[in-house]
């Protein structure tokens, strides 16, 4: 982390109070978003998202596995986050474990729903191949290559784009197998099923600096925060998850206000993200 002088801290706080941030943005304005799909050819789906100087690569790999006994009609999804030391020298060795776990758990909460699997953004029953015997295991990996604040939002966006790029191979099951034997499955190399990501939410993090909140904070602005609330909103304006970070206490009315601001900003962000995904897919088709 680069140290900030008193003058710089004052400048950042003053700018936010006057609705002009250090890079000229307004409080509720996102940085330039750039999206690329298919960056990892050997994965089933992948994406590279750049939000200002923050760069995330997300990949989705599907492997055949056995469904859990509690949910024999559902596939499994697991999300992992890795912070590369190229982003921050403090991430070397085991330094990034705490942050990676925090980010992975926050993403799981927003995208995968509760313990029973209810409310998951991805329809887990579409991942089942043979009830109780064979299902698809999705491994979603997020890699933070360059970090300049707002990692959670960028990770959620990258995962949404990677899922929209994912193709699950079609599986032909031989029906002649006996009941207690492992059924034979033939994974097709040709046909793929695309995922429906219209219900995958995005995450908007509102960072409170002084008396105002900003969206998409850079790491310098994050160092001045008193608290932050990350709200996960889907296309229909429904809230899919909520996390509050930071030690300062927040008045409940402030939290409600932040949630409504996040809902408003999220619709715009989802629009931008969807158009970027469409543009990337059009480019890939050429």
């Amino acid at each position, binding site marked *: 982390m680069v140290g900030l002088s008193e003058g710089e801290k004052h400048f950042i706080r003053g700018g936010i109070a006057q609705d002009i941030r250090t890079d000229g943005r307004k409080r509720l304005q996102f940085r330039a978003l750039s999206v690329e799909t298919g*960056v*990892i*050819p*050997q*994965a089933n789906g*992948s994406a590279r998202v750049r939000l200002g*100087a923050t*760069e995330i*690569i997300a*990949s989705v*790999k599907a*492997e055949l596995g056995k469904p859990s006994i509690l949910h024999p009609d559902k596939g499994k999804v697991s999300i*992992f986050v*890795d912070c*590369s*030391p*190229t*982003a*921050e*020298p403090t991430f*070397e*060795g*085991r330094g990034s474990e705490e942050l990676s776990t925090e980010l992975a758990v926050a993403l799981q909460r927003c995208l995968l729903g509760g313990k029973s699997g209810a409310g998951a953004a991805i329809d887990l029953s579409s991942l089942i191949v043979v009830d109780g015997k064979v299902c698809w295991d999705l*491994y979603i*990996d997020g*890699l933070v*290559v*360059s*970090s*300049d604040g707002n990692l959670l939002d960028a990770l959620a966006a990258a995962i949404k784009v990677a899922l929209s790029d994912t193709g699950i191979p079609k599986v032909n099951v031989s029906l002649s197998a006996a009941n207690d034997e492992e059924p034979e499955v033939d994974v097709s190399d040709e046909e793929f099923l695309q995922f429906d990501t219209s219900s995958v939410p995005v995450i908007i993090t509102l960072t409170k600096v002084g008396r105002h909140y900003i969206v998409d904070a850079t790491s310098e602005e994050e160092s001045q925060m008193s608290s932050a609330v990350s709200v996960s909103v889907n296309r229909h304006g429904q809230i899919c998850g909520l996390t509050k970070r930071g030690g300062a206490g927040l008045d409940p009315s402030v939290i409600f206000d932040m949630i409504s601001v996040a809902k408003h900003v999220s619709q715009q962000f989802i629009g931008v993200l969807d158009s970027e995904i469409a543009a990337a897919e059009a480019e890939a088709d050429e």
Partner: protein
Amino acid sequence: MEYVNPLTGFRVDGRRPNEMRQLKAEVGVVARADGSALFEMGNTRVIAAVYGPREIQNKGQQVNNKEALVRCEYRMAEFSTGDRRRKPKGDRRSTEISLVIRQTMEASILKDLMPCSQIDIFVQVLQADGGTRSACINAATLALADAGIPMRDIVTSCSAGYLCSTPLLDLNYVEDSAGGPDVTVGILAKMDKVTLLQMDAKLPMDTFESVMGLAIEGCKAIATYIREVLLENTKRLECQRG
């Protein structure tokens, strides 16, 4: 398996035996690092970031206070190989490669110009298709140059093997796992000195000389490319400064 087609002389991916994979390099990919580079050799993609020279974080690691401390970490992304790796950091191969890269770069960095400071080189493998060691060293050279760290010379690295009685330059993953010998060479390009030499499996002496000679030629070709990239980058910076 036919690694070299006896009729046409082509390898599994359509290259000739002394042909290297396509190279692509980009400087300055990680905005917050002092120097960074992306290096691609065919399907192997690697990002290197350099932080330094900066204050020593852990005084206990400092051995010689008249020289800079060079540290290196090599990491592979979980999605970098065909099967998903479960433990991409801290395993023995990563530790060994981190050590190898550090020793190779130390031979070139003018450490005594920066006493009591540390230089961190972080290498992240995004896609692995054979020759990751060499790609990492080439990326680290570019990143160090981008960070403005004084070096004796450009360090480049390339691998070569021997399959179907033919020396092959720049092995990819399929050729590497064929079980034939794999010679990795790292040289200081202009000074013509070898800083890294590793080989596994066995080779008769005269064949070894020809394989190593091929690898050194590969290194020199990469050095020419790296010089072009750095020149291009400097011109672009000069234009930006006006």
